[in-house]
């Protein structure tokens, strides 16, 4: 058989990787991280030029299926890892066939839950992780994606203005439907409940979980948060015809949750005295889309919210409420945002994403102002932050702590 490499974009350096060697025997010189933890398949992180790629060895048809699924999810704009390619037709030097490899790009500044929990999470941070996972699950379900293996291990987290945004990493079991039934959603939630509790119990057994954190309560909180968000996004509301402001109110509420309403069904009862509204199509990323449109910055939803708030403050402070929003945004970008993010010394740029640094500088300014009893200019806050806070942070650009030591469990029996 001949080696067959399918990628979205041609990358000849891929040919230099040792495809005729089983993945678990790849020499360390190719690897970007050493394996640790446990996963079902052999997974390795590989350096390829400036990039870090995750390579997973799996059956040929599963590799193709997952590659196609990840591409579909990207197209639907669901937060997920970026598929890079599939390698088929691998054989050893003796001609023995080897399984295919699915290649995904490592998501920069993403953090596996094990890495987060090994840094002594504050209790509210743990809650935010679960919130992020619930939001991801809602978004996947809104798109008709049944995951089939919801778990913390199959998720990566990125900092998002103090909160987190969750990304799907493993779509192996997933199915894409036109829409999901309540039963399919319940099935996913059932799986989530057991997997998350198991993963947290494992952290507890390894001494990584604070003593008062209860794995069952935490996993139940994901489900609860999911239902709250799902109901807010899809629930039907009735009110008197006179209370039409409630339509706008509903849309505003959804915007606040970070969702845009693309389609809303509105009906009146026979007597015409009551209005019933149900959002039909909601789309995540309300703030990040707006920020992208205004400034070209592509950042997390909460980061976008934070940046937009600062933009509003800038508009007010410079007394330009009457000006064209795009023009003010451009000035804000050039005068405020870029100077701050560019002032970070090169050796510290791998600590946090630029937008997250900006968010932290704003936070820092608030604390400094409170201490001083008066406003602190952003330049002063930035200087102090870079000197005292940022150097103490760990490097998070390429945390590859994902479980990568394979423990092949043959059965999928649970």
């Amino acid at each position, binding site marked *: 058989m001949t080696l067959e490499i399918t990628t979205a974009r041609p990358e000849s350096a891929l040919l230099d990787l040792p495809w005729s060697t089983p993945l678990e025997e790849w020499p360390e010189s190719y690897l970007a991280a050493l394996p640790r*933890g*446990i*996963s*079902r398949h052999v997974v390795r992180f590989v350096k390829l030029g400036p990039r870090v790629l995750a390579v997973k060895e*799996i*059956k040929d048809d*599963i590799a193709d299926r997952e590659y196609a699924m990840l591409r579909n999810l990207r197209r639907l704009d669901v937060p997920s890892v970026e598929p890079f390619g599939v390698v088929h037709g691998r054989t050893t030097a003796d001609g023995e066939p080897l*399984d295919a490899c699915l290649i995904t790009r490592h998501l920069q500044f993403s953090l596996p839950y094990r890495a987060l929990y090994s840094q002594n999470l504050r209790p509210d941070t743990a809650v935010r992780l679960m919130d992020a996972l619930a939001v991801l699950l809602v978004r996947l379900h809104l798109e008709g994606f049944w995951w*089939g*293996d919801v*778990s913390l*291990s199959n998720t990566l987290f990125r900092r998002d203005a103090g909160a987190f945004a969750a990304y799907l990493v493993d779509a*192996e*079991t997933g199915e894409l439907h036109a829409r999901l*039934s*309540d*039963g*399919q959603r*319940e*099935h996913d939630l*059932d*799986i989530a*409940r*057991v*997997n998350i*509790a*198991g*993963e947290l*119990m*494992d*952290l507890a*057994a*390894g001494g990584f979980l604070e003593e008062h954190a209860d794995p*069952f309560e935490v*996993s139940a909180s994901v489900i609860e948060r999911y239902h709250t968000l799902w109901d807010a996004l899809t629930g039907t509301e009735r009110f008197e015809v006179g209370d039409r402001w409630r339509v706008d109110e509903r849309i505003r509420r959804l915007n606040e949750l970070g969702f845009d309403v693309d389609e809303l069904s509105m009906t009146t009862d026979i007597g015409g005295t009551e209005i019933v509204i149900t959002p039909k199509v909601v789309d995540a990323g309300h703030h990040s889309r707006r920020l992208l449109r205004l400034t070209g910055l592509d950042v997390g939803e909460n980061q976008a919210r934070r940046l937009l708030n600062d933009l509003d403050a800038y508009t007010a402070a410079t007394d330009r409420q009457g000006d064209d929003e795009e023009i003010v945004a451009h000035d804000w970008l050039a005068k405020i945002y870029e100077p701050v993010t560019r002032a970070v010394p090169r050796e510290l740029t791998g600590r946090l994403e630029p937008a997250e640094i900006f968010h932290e500088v704003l936070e820092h300014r608030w604390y400094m102002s409170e201490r001083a009893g008066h406003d602190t200019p952003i330049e002063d806050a930035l200087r102090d932050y870079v000197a005292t806070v940022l150097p103490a942070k760990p490097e998070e650009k390429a945390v590859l702590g994902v479980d990568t030591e394979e*423990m*092949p*469990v*043959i*059965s*999928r*029996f*649970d």
Partner: protein
Amino acid sequence: MMSMPAHPGRHTLYNGSSGTFLPVKEGNEAMATVTFDNATRQYPGNPIPSVDKLNIEIADGEFLVLVGPSGCGKSTSLRMLAGLEEVNGGRILIGDRDVTNLSPKDRDVAMVFQNYALYPHMTVADNMGFALKIAGVDKAEIRKRVEEAAKILDLTPYLDRKPKALSGGQRQRVAMGRAIVRSPQVFLMDEPLSNLDAKLRVQTRTQIASLQRRLGVTTVYVTHDQVEAMTMGDRVAVLKDGILQQCDSPRRMYDHPANVFVAGFIGSPAMNLMEVPVTDGGVDLHGHTVPVTRENLAGVGKNVTLGVRPEDLELSSDQSGIPVTVDVVEELGADAYIYGSTEQKLLEATGENAGAVPFIARVDGRRPPEKGDKIYLKPKAGHVHVFNAESGLRVGD
């Protein structure tokens, strides 16, 4: 090797005469039969039901496999039984209990996940028992069930170790233990092997099937893979478009497919199906008459669909029978498979053109035809399946 198991909590161990332990049901146990009684599921906005008046009675301890192509309603049926999918019409019973409107946790069923992970910091015992903790089972009971399951799976010496210390096979048995300790009345499995490579799939399906038989727990298993269905199930239920096509033992299903769909779906390589003209006393295969009784042919029309399995064909010496051009010969030692196509219009008599029909036959491996050869094949006597060309239903026995 696994020792003879019993189902913890539901069965007691009976010291059999040969020194083996056999699972014996406790006298007061309710029978875990499962009944789909006209069970129907229609999703809002869909014009047709995803599962349409499903009727199956599953015996206590039976291993029933639901099989069919994607979208046939098999997973939906399973979710209806699990309580995860609303039943719009009909009923579902477990034993004598109508569970149609019960919540999943009140049904005493265990849905087995497709995927499964072992937790590295937890002991083998905790890996097996943690789902019971979620279900609120008390510690002593968990320990008891885990120990019983470990005995069955030969894992007793490893209960306090970490999974890393185990061999691959032992880890697999820990995974099975996780399902066993739940001790449900019914196991529900949705494609549990779909993500395994071929070798592991074969190995694991044997283990699941043998474990299920030893435990004697009623099991409903969903797969799209008919080979898996045929090798694992006591009975197999084939679904298509939400409608049950046939529910029978694998043997019966193979020998007496109820309709053309089942005939083509069950068996690998697939049964050859072709439309052929009816003649006096049978059907005509290019000069070779396959006998079919007159009463069976009454009212079927001019043509019928004839089905012949690849292994039920023999080479014809007189240029009558099904003409096949050989495209590929797959030699398997004693046998060889011929992949080709029928080059003639089998419906010549009626003037219709059936086109080139792919054709597969198993022949003697010692003297197989060669690629490019034109051969004639006849069905072995009594090994044909006749279906009504209109309705697709089986004609005769």
